Structures are given as structure tokens and as C-alpha cells.
């Protein structure tokens, strides 16, 4: 590890479910550096989502602790925002109201809310759809709104829970490129959960491969593909195949 400071540190995190019968992860340690894009890759059911939810203080750990900026996480923090796999848009709010949601809850002045809503709707390419209801939008556009809602609070840390997992392949790649562009414009600490190896390589500076339940960090792989990236460029990069094979082998071991 370089001299960079850990922005998020997970120390000995343990979580059990179903009256203690299922141990999701046990003594898991992880450090996320400032402004890095960290992808967490693991077989399904390995507790990736639970880990992310604990980082945001939505789930209480049974043992161990999670520290962000030197303070123990006990509840969701204002400088952390989350993007959900299920989008999590309120069907009764129009796009601009959904994007304004976090800003309103943070009690920002109306003028600031208006300015940021406009700016982030523009940034994710939803201009012209401000007044649509979520069900009038395609899945990809709904997740653009979900992304704008998270970005609008201008968080220091962005938590992404398989945000593109439920989209079709084409839309997924378009949104991955959008995310890469947005990250490039303003790098910030990002924890990105995925079960797609290609996605992890395209997005991440480092990839954490988890083992099967009870999960631990199996290995951390540095992605030495330079930015600015696009998905197409990453896939065409000479390092890509080797990285993919390594992730693939680790995942196969974990799943077995």
C-alpha cells in the first residue's frame, strides 16, 4: 500500500443472519483509500451487498467495526451516498423531485437545490425528462436518475450496489462509460459492488475478490490500466485478458 490514507476501514467485520445460523462474513478487513474506485467482486450470496450496507450504517455488525474519516459508522452519514440496484426511485415523485430528495432532507436552501438538481440532471443526460415519472422511463434512464440523486448531495464517498446489474448489456455499457466520465471529472472515493468481472476491471482502481460465505478478502488486484478509460478501451487493453483470467480463477475457487 502506498502512503495514501484509508478513507474507509473495515476492521474485523462479522455479520450473522437467521438467528446466527448463517455467517455472512467473519473477521473481514478492508481499507478503501481516498478517491480510489474500489470494486468488490464476489460470487452471488457472498454478502457483498450486506457489506456495502454496513459501510453505510444501514446494517449493524455483530462484531468488528467500520471507520470512516476516523469515526465509527453507526448510522448513514451525510457525506456518503448510495446508488441501488433496484434504483429505489419513488414512483410518485417526478425525476427532478427524486433527484432533489437527498438535498431536501439535508435542508439545503431552495436555490441551491434547484441549481444542483438542474446541474446533475444535465450531467447524467436526463435533460428534458425532469417532469417524467420513473415508470415513464426505461431502466437505464431510471438508474441515471438514481445516480443523479446520489451525486447531487455531492458526497465524498459513493457506494454503488450493483447499480447496473439489472440493465441489459448495451445500456449497462453506456452507463459504465458515463460513470467513468463522471468519475474522471471529479474523482471521489467509490465502493462499487459487482459480480461482473469486466465491470470490475473497467471501473476499479483495485478489485477486492471475496471468498464464498463466510466471506473474507481472497485477494486484492490492482488494475494497472490508465485513465481516462472507456469500457471499449479497457477491453482492448493488453492487460485486460490477464486481469480477467486472474479474477475468473479466484472466483471459480471461491464459488467451488
Amino acid at each position, binding site marked *: 500500500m502506498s502512503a495514501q490514507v484509508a478513507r474507509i476501514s473495515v476492521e474485523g467485520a462479522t455479520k450473522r443472519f437467521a438467528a446466527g445460523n448463517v455467517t455472512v462474513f467473519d473477521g473481514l478487513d478492508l481499507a478503501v483509500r481516498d478517491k480510489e474506485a474500489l470494486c468488490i467482486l464476489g460470487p452471488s450470496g457472498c454478502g457483498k451487498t450486506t457489506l456495502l450496507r454496513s459501510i453505510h450504517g444501514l446494517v449493524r455488525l455483530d462484531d468488528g467495526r467500520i471507520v470512516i474519516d476516523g469515526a465509527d459508522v453507526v448510522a448513514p452519514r451525510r457525506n456518503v451516498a448510495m446508488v*441501488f440496484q433496484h434504483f429505489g426511485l419513488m414512483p*410518485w415523485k417526478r425525476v427532478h423531485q427524486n433527484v432533489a430528495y437527498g438535498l431536501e432532507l439535508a435542508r439545503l436552501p431552495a436555490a441551491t437545490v434547484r441549481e444542483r438538481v438542474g446541474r446533475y440532471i444535465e450531467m447524467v443526460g436526463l435533460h428534458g425528462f425532469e417532469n417524467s415519472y420513473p415508470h415513464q422511463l426505461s431502466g437505464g434512464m431510471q438508474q441515471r436518475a438514481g445516480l443523479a440523486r446520489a451525486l447531487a448531495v455531492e458526497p465524498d464517498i459513493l457506494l454503488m450496489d450493483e447499480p447496473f446489474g439489472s440493465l441489459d448489456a448495451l445500456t449497462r455499457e453506456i452507463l459504465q462509460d458515463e460513470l467513468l466520465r463522471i468519475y474522471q471529472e471529479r474523482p471521489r472515493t467509490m465502493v462499487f459492488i459487482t459480480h461482473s468481472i469486466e465491470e470490475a476491471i473497467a471501473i476499479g482502481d483495485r478489485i477486492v475478490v471475496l471468498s464464498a460465505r463466510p466471506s473474507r478478502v481472497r485477494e486484492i488486484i490492482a488494475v494497472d490500466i490508465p485513465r481516462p478509460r472507456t469500457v471499449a478501451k479497457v477491453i482492448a487493453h493488453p492487460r485486460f485478458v490477464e486481469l480477467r483470467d486472474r479474477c475468473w480463477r479466484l472466483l471459480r475457487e471461491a464459488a467451488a
Partner: protein
Amino acid sequence: MTIREAQSQVVQAQRRRLFRPRAGDWAVRLGAIGVFLLIWEFLAPGWNPLIIRPPSAIARAFVDLTESGELQTALVISMRSFSAGLAIAVVLGVFLGIVTGRWRTAFNALDPLVSAFYSVPSVALIPLIGFIFKFQGETPRIAAVALFCIFPVLINTQQGVRNVDRGLLEVARAFNTSERRLWTDVIIPSSVPFVLAGIRLAIGRGLIGMIVAEFFIGLVGLGYLIIQYGNVFRIDRMFVPIITVAALGIISMGFVQWLEGRVAPWLRREQ
């Protein structure tokens, strides 16, 4: 996830549906009613006039009862108790539905009572209501309507509050919601369609309650007109209050549907 799934199911159902609304629909509907009335008109003279009267006679009776003011007087009396009873049921039902939907203790305390009252046919309780309110004035009739209306509102509201999408609750928590904003942003809007569906059901039941109460408790209003003209075999006049009640039901439900479009525009069907 559940709301999105439900919505996509609705969309799919709409796509699958054989009959999409078309311009000619209304012509067919009105035409069918016209044909039905015509057949009735021509066949009626062959029957005993004590049992069947033609639509034209009913139309004349409608004019007679309107000119004498009998119908209006009865309608005002019936609508007063109906609207008062429905309003009480909606306020009380929504309140109890929210309380029991959100707090386990309240649910456990009230659920046995609600189930018990809901499984007894409400009609069976009409005489009891008469006794409780001493058969005096409109209070027992309002109570009867409220009794008939409250359960669908209460149970639907409760379901609405309990069926709030867990994903959205988590989103709200992730964005640091306050308890008040949790209600206004998530719980109340997601319950609105359930509450309105409950009110639609309540309208149908409330009209039954209204008429039955007028039969057995008050002897006033549209219910009394039905009994009165039935007893003297004026079938033509008896039909007037019956048709009026039907119209009352259709208009009230149409109003709720209109209201749904206003307060829950996100449910408005596309295309």
C-alpha cells in the same frame, strides 16, 4: 422492488388486454341499453302491471316524483346520512388503518375485534344500531352507513401501510430521512391507491347500509320510497328511487376515480 414489479405487471396486463378503449365503445354501450329498454317497453304490456311496468311508465313516474318534490326530499335525506357516514368511516378507517399498519401492538389489539366485526354480516347489526341510538333521528342511519363503510377503508389502509416497498424504506434511511419525511415521502403516497380502492369498496357497501337502515330504522329517504311504493304496488314509482341509488353509486365511484387521477397522477395509465 414490489412496487416496480406490480407496475410492470399492470403494464403487461394492459398490453395483453384484448379490449383497449376505443371511440366506438360508448356507442355500443348506449346502443345495448337502448335495445334492452326497447325490448322491455314492447314486452311489458303483456305482463301483469303489478309486476312489470314499461320504461316509459317509469320515466313518467320519475317526472311525477320530481315535480311533487318527493324524490328530491328523499334524496337529500339519504345523501346526508350517506355522506356523513362515509366521511366518518374514511376518517376513522384511515386513522385506525395507519395506526394498526405501523404499530404491531395496535395491530394485535385491534385485529381480533376487526376480524370479528368484519365476519358478521353488517346487516345483522342494523337492529342493534337502532337500539343503541334509540331509533331517533339520523344518528342511527349515519352509524349504519359508517359501520358498513369502515372495514374496507381500515383494512385497505392497513395493507397499504404494511406493503410499503422495503427498498424505498431503505432508500429513505440511506438519505437520512426524518420520521415525518418518511411518512410524507414514502408511507402516505404508497398507501394512497390502497386507501382509494378501499373507499370505492366502501361506497358500494355504504349504499347498502343506507337503504337497509332506511328500511328498518328510519323509514325515511330513498329506502322509504321503495318500501312505500312497493307496498301499494306502484312498481313504476318504486323503480325511481332504485335507479336513483344506482346513479348515486356510479357517480360516487366516478368521483373517487377522478380523485385518484388528481392525488395520485403517477398511477395514471399511459396512452
